[in-house]
């Protein structure tokens, strides 16, 4: 088979193409704003201002960013092994069990810095468990991972509804949530980090799990590009046949990859439960698992791309709240449109502008043009 596309320099491959895709997604979103009868420029102003205008706003933006780094990494890890984990939503939801159990059991006796590691393990354990089943089913029984993870999202929703109703809800309470945690179940805010830059975090729930997200991003980079396991995962992702031929145990890699992916998704639960609400509520994930898909696609499954992509979506979520406050006809559902368009253009249509860009880039730089000419491409 012939090579479909000429190789592009790194700046075009990892910089220009994602930017063009993103720009198109935002242009179409701007069109929707126009249809609704508002000014896209004004919306953009409110968005940027709402996301970065004040220390408190930045705190909220980074709070959302934390969540999306976790779910983005979860999707990305699975992508590297050629698996599409749509179940981040359910895994994060079930991961909440681990956080809630740790906090409910220990918050009155231990300080937060001892509860936190246990909660991390709990979140990762339950998230990994929820992802392990689809992984195992794919590896051993050949059922399609996309379908099973979708089904597991719905099963998770029913399961958590039941658990919150029958197990976690305090006696006599009407709302579907656990009791509020004491000091041991509350993560400290990162106000010292903000004050270095002369900003005040205000009421924003920007907390220490942000640092955990950065550590996780680094750990994922080490895992994927610096370990034997990561190498095996990538081999399987590129060519399952080659991986099998090389003696890589396919079933083992699938299950382990899914568990890592689910564990990362589960750790997302720390941020809203221990960092913001100090209790587990119904539907606390709020679609963050799906945002992870957009983040991973935009960040091209590389931690260095995922962090800025998560920041972008953090900005959309926080700035979107501000837009809906200033311009009532644009509710927060606008973010869902943008998210969908980003998935469409950065994911399914990622090659749409590639031929044009390739022509442009090769035409611009004499070096690559010569290489292309000698190869007769």
């Amino acid at each position: 088979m012939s090579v479909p596309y000429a190789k592009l320099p790194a700046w075009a491959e990892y910089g220009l193409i994602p930017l063009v895709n993103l720009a198109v997604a935002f242009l179409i979103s701007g069109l929707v704003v126009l249809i609704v009868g508002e000014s896209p420029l004004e919306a953009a102003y409110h968005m940027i201002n709402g996301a970065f205008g004040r220390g408190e706003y930045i705190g909220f933006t980074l709070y959302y960013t934390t969540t999306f780094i976790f779910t983005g990494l979860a999707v990305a890890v699975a992508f590297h092994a050629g698996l599409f984990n749509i179940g981040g939503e359910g895994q994060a939801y079930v991961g909440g069990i681990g956080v809630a159990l740790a906090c409910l059991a220990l918050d009155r006796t231990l300080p937060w810095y001892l509860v936190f590691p246990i909660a991390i393990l709990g979140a990762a354990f339950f998230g990994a468990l929820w992802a392990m089943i689809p992984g195992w089913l794919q590896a051993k029984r050949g059922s399609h991972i996309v379908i099973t993870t979708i089904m597991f999202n719905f099963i998770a929703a029913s399961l958590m509804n039941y658990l919150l109703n029958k197990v976690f809800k305090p006696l006599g309470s009407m709302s579907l949530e656990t009791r509020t945690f004491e000091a041991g179940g509350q993560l400290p805010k990162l106000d010292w980090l903000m004050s270095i830059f002369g900003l005040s975090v205000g009421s924003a729930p920007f907390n220490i799990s942000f640092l955990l997200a950065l550590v996780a991003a680094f750990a994922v980079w080490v895992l994927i590009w610096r370990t034997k396991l990561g190498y095996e995962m990538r081999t399987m992702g590129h060519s399952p046949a080659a991986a099998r031929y090389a003696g890589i145990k396919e079933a083992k890699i699938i299950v382990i990859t899914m568990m890592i992916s689910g564990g990362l998704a589960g750790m997302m639960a720390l941020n809203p439960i221990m960092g913001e609400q100090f209790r587990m509520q119904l539907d606390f994930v709020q679609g963050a698992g799906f945002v992870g898909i957009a983040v991973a696609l935009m960040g091209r499954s590389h931690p260095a791309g995922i962090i800025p992509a998560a920041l972008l979506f953090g900005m959309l979520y926080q700035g979107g709240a501000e837009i809906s406050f200033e311009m009532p006809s644009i509710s927060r559902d606008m973010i869902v449109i943008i998210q969908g368009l980003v998935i469409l253009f950065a994911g399914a249509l990622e090659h749409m502008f590639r031929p044009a860009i390739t022509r442009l880039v090769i035409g611009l730089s004499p070096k690559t043009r010569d290489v292309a000419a000698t190869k007769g491409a």
Partner: protein
Amino acid sequence: MDFFQVFIELAQSTVRVSTPLILAALAGLFTERAGVFDIGLEGKMLGAAFAAGCVAYITQSVYMGLLAAILVSVLLSLVHGYASITQRGSQIVSGVAINFVVAGSTVILGEAWFRQGGRTPALSESGRFSAIHLPFADAVRDVPILGQIYSGLLSGHSPLTYLAFLMVPASWWILYRTRFGLRLRAVGENPGAVDTAGISVIWLRYRAVICCGILCGIAGAYLSLSAGAGFTKGMTAGKGYIALAALIFAKWRPKNILFACLLFGFLDAFAIRYQGFAFPLIGKVPVQLMQALPYILTVILLAGFIGKAIPPKAGGVPYVKER
């Protein structure tokens, strides 16, 4: 006899709940049999329901509403087709994207146009499909059993419901007894062979995707023009995914789709009607378990514990012509 009346009522609501599932699952059947996976059924149905609600309200014509629903759904299908057939992008990613774009834009546009919190204005009688009463339905109502079945179960449904049930044998006939259907199934199993025979794989897959759009459009129109009186925010509520589950549960076969959809519809209707019902032997079943049952059953089936669901061989793989 009281028990029988309860049974009739339950069967009646099962039929109602199953209608959009059958239409959407058949829609999925057409694309997936042609080798294009589609997890965007949910989004297409939602978009169609919205279009139907808007247009039926503005024109006061139920048929214009239906037409608009089909149009929007086919357009969305073509976007999916362009991404996954022409651009050879990931079919799963494209489906996910469509679901999100539609979920967001129906709310934003609905709010901007009608300002009723994301719903379209309630439709009057002329904007909805009214129930068809079969001849003599009232006269035989009191005849035991047969009369009850005739007037209680068979009569009094929306025309779209009858259409949905007719579409099952029709789809079977199209897929298994026409040249188009044979080629469509072939292109989902071995597109290379179809291409060798001089038939365009691309055009065939596009036609399959359009068929899917039409059926999804009818399913969406049923939701806002028959089951409800207008569009409400997120009114598909996961029905697209249940239809997807039913399609897999039915092992991609038209006849099985009917039974799978009726089963899932029955679970839903039963869960709505008998919350906290105590079964003999098992005792009370939590309503959450009833809601999760379609998904659990599908997972168990996919795992090969009850039969084996084998998807079309070329499903999910974009076709690249040899050069």
